[in-house]
């Protein structure tokens, strides 16, 4: 059984998402005061999409190649996530706030 769902202080909540560098950099500000600058390339590599789950990190790298990756569109998903569209057309990854925080904290 899971613990009570009541107040979860550790739960990261973003206050702002900012896309700059012509779509190559997503800066996420959390209410904890943490600010993470995530490159669109790393986000693309870390996509939680089911389509990419079967790919190894190396395969993901190979799929994207050496070019810079841009985000062309960001769609909010309810209260809990975003769904970015990348310039290679990939748009099926739903990034939750927790996932974004994790990517930031692990230095991706």
């Amino acid at each position, binding site marked *: 059984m*899971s613990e*009570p*769902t*009541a*107040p979860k202080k550790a739960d990261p*909540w*973003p*206050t*702002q*998402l*900012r*896309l*700059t560098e*012509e*779509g190559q950099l997503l800066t996420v*500000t959390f*209410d904890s005061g943490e600010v993470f600058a995530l490159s669109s390339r790393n986000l693309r590599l870390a996509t939680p999409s089911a389509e990419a789950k079967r790919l190894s990190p190396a395969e993901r790298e190979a799929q994207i190649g050496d070019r810079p990756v*841009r*985000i*062309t*569109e*960001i*769609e*909010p*998903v*309810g*209260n*809990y996530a*975003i769904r970015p569209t990348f310039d290679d057309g990939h748009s099926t990854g739903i990034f939750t*706030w927790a996932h974004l925080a994790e990517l930031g904290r692990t230095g991706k």
Partner: protein
Amino acid sequence: MIDENAIAEALGAVNGPDGRTPLTRSGAIAGLTQREGKVYLSILVDPTAAAKAEPMRKAAEEALRAVEGVAAAIVTLTSERAPGAPAARSHSHAPAANPAARPRVPESVAGVRHLIAVASGKGGVGKSTVAANLAIAMAQEGWRVGLLDADVFGPSAPRLFGLTEKPKVEQSFLVPLLAHGVKVISIGLMIEEEAPVVWRGPMVMSAVTQLLREVAWGELDCLVVDMPPGTGDVQLTLAQSAPLAGAIIVSTPQDLALIDARRGIAMFDKVKIPVLGIIENMSYFICPHCQGRSDIFAHGGARHEAEKRGVAFLGEVPLDMEIRETSDAGRPVAAAFPDGPHAKIFRAIARNVIGQLDAPAQRVAPKILIG
């Protein structure tokens, strides 16, 4: 896609709330979205001057309808900005400032201030009856309320609200029916009562999206969504496509129902929708003959669960003939006997919910800025 510049041009010809500045330069555009030839615009106005703004609303609607490719336009007046909407952006002067990237405007439902869901883990706990009475009670508290029956497989709203006529379609928007002070829409209004809905997931999802967005709700303080039981397609579609302000869980006190209520709470937690509270339905039974009380499904289980999960306990609704009879007769108890003991329970719950919705939201979805 309708040409955004054409829309901006059309709106530039309409005077904004002050009667002089073009709408596009007035900073009063709180939200502008389009979907399959339909344009939704909300204009920010001072709530006290809403009546005076009506001609402007009409003018904007007509201007939009004249734009090529626009099949229908809905313009609403709002006193609040849609979350994430730009504060004051001039559409006419900076058309597509950064064509490389653009944020999608969060698709809140045009004109609806708060969207809440009434859900349960298990079926048969009286969720639709509670949702109907809660909506009526909120309307009695002075709110403009709508009820969306999202239970596409077992729609109950037509029976509960005593509705038999089919909703009209105006400019390709469904017009909700008004009953007991609540605007109601349900898939059940469009099909025969005995006809089954035999659909796969994607059809259900698109039906729910249509019931949400392609209905002329007008200005509402609250839209109550009566969810189907469980944690499936409909729940996920709503959680992903609309910013829900909160969810209310209905459960009977018995353990079997509470197990699934827990799942419901956990699901809303996953998609970051706050649980406004739990209502215990069929909480107790007062014998009409001897006045003795029987706790048919045990008692207090939902309250206990609410405490354990740290969510509000909203109230106990008894198992009572009057509630059942009025529901089946199309006049829910809150409307049929507004001064009766049961109506009082729903009014108290309604006040609690209104209070929670009016309080400033703790956590709203973040702003998405581009550039």
